[in-house]
């Protein structure tokens, strides 16, 4: 039996909500980039989807997720196979992967930007990382997003300044393909959980975190959200889940992921 926790942080609520993205994935590589996505994928693998595969964020696949941060000198990770960067692409292109990442912009089509903001392409106002692996990820396998600060700069008006990943934009649909080939799963933020399951792949509210209103989510999103008649509250972590998260994150890196590390239930 599981016991619902009453005392948890918003970060922990987000980890549990994000873990749900991997529940029905079966045997795929779960890649969580950043503390909360990585803990979410690890929690899913440790609990309801043990078939998931996971890397050590360097060059090996693990049969058991590594805890985050510095580990004891005698720690031995549970290597399963070698998985260097060149082999990662073999996995990506096979489609047997589900990545969860945190783009800087997500537009109404689910297109994302990790590269550049403002100005012109030749001379952007703010240069960021570059497209990284987003183009390939988005056309080859499932993707989810985590956004620690839900606002209209992330969920912005118009199209992304640079489109790093394909979304549900009919104008950009490659010939011979269907919008249904694009596989965006969950969008977990500090306010709510969404997906792109509304009419014509419109973004849709799935659940609100405790104390958050539909109006607050809409005010912080620059495009209309499909809102079902009944919007549930994001399920609280269980005591067992919190214990697993604490063991996976012994240095409490999760406390630094959402501004001011607020409680899961608003005061």
């Amino acid at each position: 039996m599981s016991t619902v926790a009453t005392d948890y942080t918003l970060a922990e609520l987000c980890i549990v909500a994000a873990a749900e993205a991997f529940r029905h994935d079966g045997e795929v590589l779960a890649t969580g980039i950043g503390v909360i996505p990585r803990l979410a994928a690890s929690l899913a693998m440790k609990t309801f989807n043990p078939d998931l595969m996971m890397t050590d964020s360097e060059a090996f696949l693990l049969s058991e997720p590594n805890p985050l941060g510095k580990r004891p000198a005698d720690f031995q990770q549970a290597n399963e196979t070698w998985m260097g960067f060149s082999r990662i692409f073999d996995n990506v292109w096979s489609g047997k992967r589900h990545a969860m990442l945190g783009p800087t912009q997500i537009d109404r089509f689910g297109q994302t930007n990790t590269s550049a903001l403002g100005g012109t392409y030749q001379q952007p106002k703010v240069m960021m990382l570059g497209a990284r692996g987003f183009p390939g990820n988005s056309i080859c396998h499932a993707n989810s997003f985590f956004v620690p600060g839900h606002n209209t700069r992330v969920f912005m008006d118009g199209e992304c300044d640079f489109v790093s990943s394909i979304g549900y934009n009919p104008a950009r649909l490659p010939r011979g393909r269907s919008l249904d080939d694009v596989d965006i799963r969950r969008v977990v933020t500090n306010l709510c959980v969404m997906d792109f399951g509304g009419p014509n792949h419109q973004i849709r509210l799935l659940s609100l975190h405790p104390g958050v209103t539909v109006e607050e989510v809409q005010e912080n999103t620059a495009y209309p959200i499909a809102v079902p008649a009944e919007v549930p509250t994001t399920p609280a972590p269980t005591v067992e889940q919190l214990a697993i998260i604490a063991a996976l994150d012994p240095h409490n890196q999760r406390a630094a992921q959402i501004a001011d590390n607020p409680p899961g239930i608003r005061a």
Partner: protein
Amino acid sequence: MDKRLSARDAVAQIEDGMTVGIGGWGPRRKPMALVREILRSDVKDLTVVAYGGADVGMLCAAGKVKKLVFAFVSLDFIPLEPYFRQARQSGSIEVMEIDEGMMLLGLRAAAWGLPFIPTAVGLGTDIIKQNPDIKLVDSPYDDKEWVAMPALNLDVSLIHVDRADFRGVCQISGPDHYLDDWFARAAKTTIVSCDELVDTTFFADPARAREVFWERAATSAIVEIPGGAHPTSCNPLYGFDVAHFKAYNASAKDGGIESYLNTYLGADEAEYQRNVGGLDAIRALALPTY
């Protein structure tokens, strides 16, 4: 064939306007001593192809780069590379921005003598819109359109490895050889720096032979430079230099690349290593935990 050269003689093969591939990944096992030799030279107008870190940042800041082929430029623990950002935000370099996997395909096409490799990667994104030179093609086997990722033909590749012999057998014993084998194969001339020069008999052990990821015919020159990846890592020999990267990052806001180079670069690698605390200090840098 004895392929040993000095860093200066090896890098002197790079001419103005050439396309140069750089192995490694972000802050990991970059041929930084060879990059520093470029910084000490007069060569210019390079097209650089890399999974970029400070190698790209330094070359951009020093005005060596005409065009950059990249998927990202990052120092990992400092996500945004400061001098790469300055170069982009001042509009001073041409770019070909592609996906990480497209770069692998481009290197493979070059290695295999193909004009392009078809892929779905890039479809529907600004990779296609901003790169008019990357064409979409019809398939003879289906009705879909595909991205024709062009060969990234390299004049020269620069790579750093743990150990090598005088004939160019190269060992990478760390956890990942990244895409270095493809950089080696995609180039007309591949210059490899090594932390240690070893006797050919070193590779008789099959476990060591399995840590050799390309044949010696793909290696053109060997340069022995202990600590030559600094400030990037050369796992398992040493980690990346966090304090040095922080100083490098700070220099972009205060003093610029001139102050960084004046402080550290020196006339040769021996002087550089004195300026950063010596080889023993480099060898003592802890490996990162991911």
